[in-house]
């Protein structure tokens, strides 16, 4: 069985349209970033996130309404607490978040105990007869201010350092121009995905940072497979213009590109659909990453190499230098 055998799709001819699409996506992403900002999770802002289950043992007790809970917390010194239902309403599972950045109350090491105390005191019927530690608390995260800001710096630093190390590697293995364009493609992917997170208001958790770095790894992997082929084809087709060689290489690797991104996408999709709530956003980011990573390898990284070398009148030199490498 074969898909896409011996294709000769003129990918590079459509690159101007692709640039426009990418530009629109990037601008939309940046607008999202600057207008709405990122919804950093407790890991980064510091504060408390507590998931509690308040379904009463006694079925005659009225279930807790979300507004009731909000009012109780408001009256006890936490007016900025964000409260959400987790799962179906009848489960009475709530996620309560108090972020230090937006809270007037001082968030300290005791905040989680205070919030729990408030809940236990105000909803005695809903916690009665149940083990607070085992049945009521589903999860709690408490992050001190110092750790939160440290983590944010580290996360940004991690993405930047990974990018720099990759430029160096590709520079060493290919040509500087290829390395730079590969990184432009990566930045493109990261900006669009982070932009989508900003626009949809999804939280940036530590897991999302991990997903971003995985995407970076995946996308560069995809780009390099094409670059590798370009390097090889340049040796064989010395006479042909760079854009034709590149188009040829993209076509040659196309079936591999489709199969690998397909299998990766399937596993990420399976995580998204069946992986449970905790991995939901993580899988969502990876799915987006596979789509944009594959697209950017062809339309950003490879296409930009053509245009940038052309603009700098560097085509011949870059091609020659590259074809000499192993």
């Amino acid at each position, binding site marked *: 069985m074969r898909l896409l055998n011996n294709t000769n799709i003129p990918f590079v001819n459509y690159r101007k349209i692709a640039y426009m699409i990418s530009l629109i996506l990037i601008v939309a992403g940046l607008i999202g970033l600057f207008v709405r900002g990122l919804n950093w999770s407790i890991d980064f802002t510091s504060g408390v996130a507590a998931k509690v289950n308040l379904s009463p043992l006694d079925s005659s007790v009225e279930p807790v309404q979300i507004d009731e809970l909000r009012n109780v917390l408001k009256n006890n010194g936490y007016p900025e607490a964000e409260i959400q239902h987790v799962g179906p309403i009848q489960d009475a599972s709530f996620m309560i978040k108090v972020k230090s950045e937006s809270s007037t109350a001082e968030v300290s*090491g005791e905040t989680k105990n205070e919030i729990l105390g408030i809940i236990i005191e105000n909803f005695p019927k809903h916690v009665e007869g149940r083990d607070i530690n085992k049945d009521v*608390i589903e999860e*709690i995260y408490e992050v001190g201010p110092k750790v939160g800001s440290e983590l944010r710096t580290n996360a940004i630093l991690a993405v930047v350092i*990974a990018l720099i190390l990759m430029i160096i590697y590709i520079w060493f293995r290919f040509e500087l121009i290829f390395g730079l364009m590969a990184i432009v493609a990566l930045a493109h992917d990261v900006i669009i995905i982070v932009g989508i997170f900003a626009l949809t208001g999804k939280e940036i958790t530590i897991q999302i940072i991990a997903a971003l770095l*995985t995407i970076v790894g995946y996308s560069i992997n995809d780009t390099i497979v094409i670059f590798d082929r370009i390097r090889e084809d340049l040796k064989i087709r010395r006479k042909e213009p760079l854009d034709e060689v590149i188009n040829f290489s993209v076509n040659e690797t196309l079936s591999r590109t489709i199969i690998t991104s397909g299998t990766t996408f399937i596993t990420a999709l399976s995580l998204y659909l069946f992986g449970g709530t905790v*991995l939901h956003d993580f899988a969502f980011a990876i799915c987006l990453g596979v789509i944009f990573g594959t697209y950017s390898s062809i339309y950003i990284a490879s296409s930009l190499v053509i245009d940038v070398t052309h603009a700098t009148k560097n085509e011949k030199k870059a091609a020659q230098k590259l074809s000499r490498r192993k």
Partner: protein
Amino acid sequence: MKKFSWRGLSIIIFICVTLFYLAPLAIPNLPRWWSSHVLKLGLDIKGGMQILLEVDTSELSTADARGAVDQNIKIIRERIDQYGVAEPSIQKLGENRIMVQLPGVSDYQAAENLIKQTAMLEFKVVATQEEAQRVIDTIDANIKANLDKFPALKELADKDREIIGADSSGVDTESSVFSSLIRPSQDGFVVQYDTIRLVQDLLANPEFMQMVPAGWELALERINAENPRSDRPIHVLSSAVELSGADIARARVEYGSATSTDPRIANKPYVSIEMKREGARKFERVTADNVGKRLAIVLDGVVYSAPNIQERIGGGRAQITGRFTTSEANELAIVLNTGSLIAPIKPVSTSIIGATLGSDSIRSGSTAGLIGLAVVMVFMLIYYKLSGLITDLALIFNVGFILAMLTAFGGTLTLPGIAGIILTIGMAVDANVLVFERIREELDHGKTPRSAVDAGYKRATITVWDANITTLIAAAVLYQFGTGPIRGFAITLTIGIIGSMFCALVFVRSIFENYIVTGTKKTLSI
């Protein structure tokens, strides 16, 4: 195999190591040295608690500070061991942080208290009623002179004046602003529930400490667990430390008999302490000198109990009573036995994961993984036929290899780690796909299966290396900057990449060369 080859040997080692580390998961009754190598599950799967603590070494000299963190770790480890947690993990992070992970712990509050308690035990003589009154009067006078330093008290004084009314403007609320917070009781003073918070803040305020006459100090009594909203006694203590935790040889939980006449211990747990020889001598002297007075047992600045000294007590035994629950008494005994922390610590971040959430997560995580694996395997089989089957075999080995290596390196399987394995499944076929597509091209160019396989591997190997090294860079950076679960993810990703490269470039290739394209076969199922 006809003759020795490095590749054959490496495959045999690869398979043996994988089987060795996976066996304990499948076979129940292995010898201990073998079964102890079993994959650990992370907190996010098992449930439990994780606390990141920071050691405050600001009060210590640089030389002491260095040792303090390690010393604290030792003490915390002992406390946790005595508390009884299976497989705790206590690590030093950076210069002055300690990461404590307690899988399966369900009483979070107790565990946190046990760990973070400084546990500085002191015995101090309680002031007599007259002495105490004098101290409080002095505090009142001092505060009146410095009322500006205590905005909360100033506000209180103003409010009191308003309540009394305009006609009594001569009433001086300021001169008794502190003593208005406390009330005399039959054997000392108490603080009303509403003002406890204010008094606690005052006691922690260094400005306030200067208001207390030298040689004396104030301390609240422990919260009454049976009635947390009741008033709390406050004691005036002599600052001299008569005995400290260092004088204690052993602490143990005991139960008062039901018939005991002392209501504090009747039918209740209490902690009995035995002193070292030197301590016993000190204790005897203190009790002899202070008959008729009370002796306060103070832990971390809170009075646990303050019994009357009826007579001189020899033998170096004492009891700490204080309406404990059994678990509280247990914790107290543990912290007394393990000694006090060298430098105070405070939690900077805490995660608590309920066991239900964890088991739900692992169930859905593995479902997702199996579905993903099945779809990918079926696809490979249809698309590459026999060669796809070999890849599928390698894929299963690869997943096994990841789990085995995680076990071997003492890693833990976290939820992001499972996600890492699932993604590896998707990406692991990449190396094979690269090679297979290349072999197909070579076949298209009219080569024989044998030379197509050789050429395909030769060409694709460079690509596989280039592509994977960059992913390894991303994983290494993740490992360096991440903590906990993210490190788990980075490790699984790294092992997965190495495993998939090995499977594709060594394992699958060997099968090809030895069984599929042997001799002069004309066709290749790919």
